């Protein structure tokens, strides 16, 4: 009779294997539950506006003004490159005015919101996770609670509100910058006239495109603030815990942005 295979310890494989699978699954459900509780706490903290409004203004400056340069720089280069690559692919095969449509639609529907959100996931997400994680491991969050203060209204809500307010604003600015850069690149390199570029842009443009860009920006604004806030707030002890929280926040936010990007395209774009 052959011995029952074993992974480690005393328990046989047929008992250990389900446990090994169940543990991370249960862990994920626990995270989802705790995340839901955090969202509930944020909603409960809304009436405490005297606490969160001044702090939200500070955070808006951090998210908005602080990220403006890198967001506009990225959007500008994205617009220019889109224009040049479209020119490389389409010149001689389709009418030149299509360039205007390609640049406009690419920037407004996809590149503006997604690139801005990915940049903010790195810049703001890492910052929030590191700040809150450090506050957790140095007992500052415990201290706040021991003083009878609500961490949701002092720490979390101002950051989330800043994301909800400032990310759409940044996306709109990124859209404008990308379009202008794309226009300039097309004009200087491909010799397209202003009239052709504008004609192409307007030919395929629907006002819903802007709403779609805004809806995506709102959703991404929540993702790049709420996930890092949750991850930082529940960080493990020590410097390693803060480091892990920071990495997790950026990776999770980025993955969620790409996932939401697909889901929203499927849900909101007619005929897809």
């Amino acid at each position: 009779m052959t011995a029952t295979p074993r992974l480690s310890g005393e328990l046989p494989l047929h008992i250990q294997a389900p446990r090994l699978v169940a543990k991370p699954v249960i862990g994920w459900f626990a995270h989802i539950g705790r995340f839901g509780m955090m969202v509930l706490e944020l909603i409960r903290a809304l009436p405490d506006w005297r606490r969160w409004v001044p702090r939200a203004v500070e955070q808006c400056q951090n998210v908005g003004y602080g990220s403006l340069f890198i967001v506009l720089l990225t959007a500008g280069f994205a617009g220019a490159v889109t224009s040049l690559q479209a020119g490389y692919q389409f010149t001689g095969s389709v009418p030149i005015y299509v360039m205007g449509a390609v640049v406009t639609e690419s920037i407004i529907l996809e590149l503006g919101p997604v690139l801005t959100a990915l940049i903010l996931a790195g810049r703001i997400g890492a910052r929030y996770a590191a700040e809150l994680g450090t506050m957790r491991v140095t007992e500052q969050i415990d201290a706040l609670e021991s003083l009878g203060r609500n961490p949701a209204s002092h720490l979390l809500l101002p950051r989330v509100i800043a994301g909800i307010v400032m990310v759409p604003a940044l996306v709109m600015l990124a859209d404008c910058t990308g379009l202008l850069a794309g226009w300039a690149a097309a004009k200087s390199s491909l010799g397209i006239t202003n009239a052709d570029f504008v004609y192409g842009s307007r030919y395929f443009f629907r006002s819903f495109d802007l709403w779609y860009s805004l809806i995506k920006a709102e959703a991404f604004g929540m993702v790049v603030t709420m996930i890092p806030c949750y991850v930082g707030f529940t960080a493990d002890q020590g410097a390693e815990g803060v480091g892990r929280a920071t990495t997790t926040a950026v990776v999770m936010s980025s993955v969620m942005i790409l996932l939401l990007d697909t889901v929203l395209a499927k849900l909101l774009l007619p005929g897809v």
Partner: protein
Amino acid sequence: MIELRGVHKSFGRQVVLDGVDFEVRRGETVALLGPSGTGKSVLLKHIVGLLRPDSGDVLVDGQSVPNLSRAGLTALRLKVGYAFQMGALFDSMTVFENIRLGIADETQYRDEAYCDARVAECLRLVNLLPEVGRKMPAELSGGMRKRVGIARAIAGRPSYLLYDEPTSGLDPVNADAMDDLIEQLQAELHATSVVVSHDVRGSFKVADRIALLHHGTIRKVGTAEDFVNAKDEVVREFLERDFQLLEAGR
């Protein structure tokens, strides 16, 4: 009055508190002794509801802390001042703003003149100059951070004061000064206090009674004299780590 009844607390498979029964009477100072890592800070966090026991109960003024509503827990926390081990100062705020956040009453918190006076008073009580209020926590030494942490804890005029390792990491001179400060605050504020420490000599100085936490349970409770005369091997072993105390006990 603070009471812990059969409190159990585990983190994963690690049992930290294994049926703790503990009582602090109104107006007295109790030192909770024990080696590092025995769960003294964990026990303290149960008193303000920062941690919930797996089983057992924690009572403050007869109210069961784990069963308090959100509003009830906030009300309790406003009565308790908690001085954290490393100060736990908010590093994005000045010392003044840190201490001000400890003012429990919302009307007083919004009164600029009251806050100025109260923060200055709290700084005086912990033997710090008013100018320290303008500094950021990063500019303070370890001892000053602890003092500011205590100033924040007393700003709301609490009925209970919890000190988590107030002398750890301090040199002997500053540790003595911290013990003097705890005694002085006790004389001025008449709060019910729990001092968590592994410093035997300091605990004997500041406390009316002493409790020894060992392997998740309270091994002995008594006065300093009871401890010096104890026959329990565990108590003796713990006390003998402090050479001076041993000399005094002989």
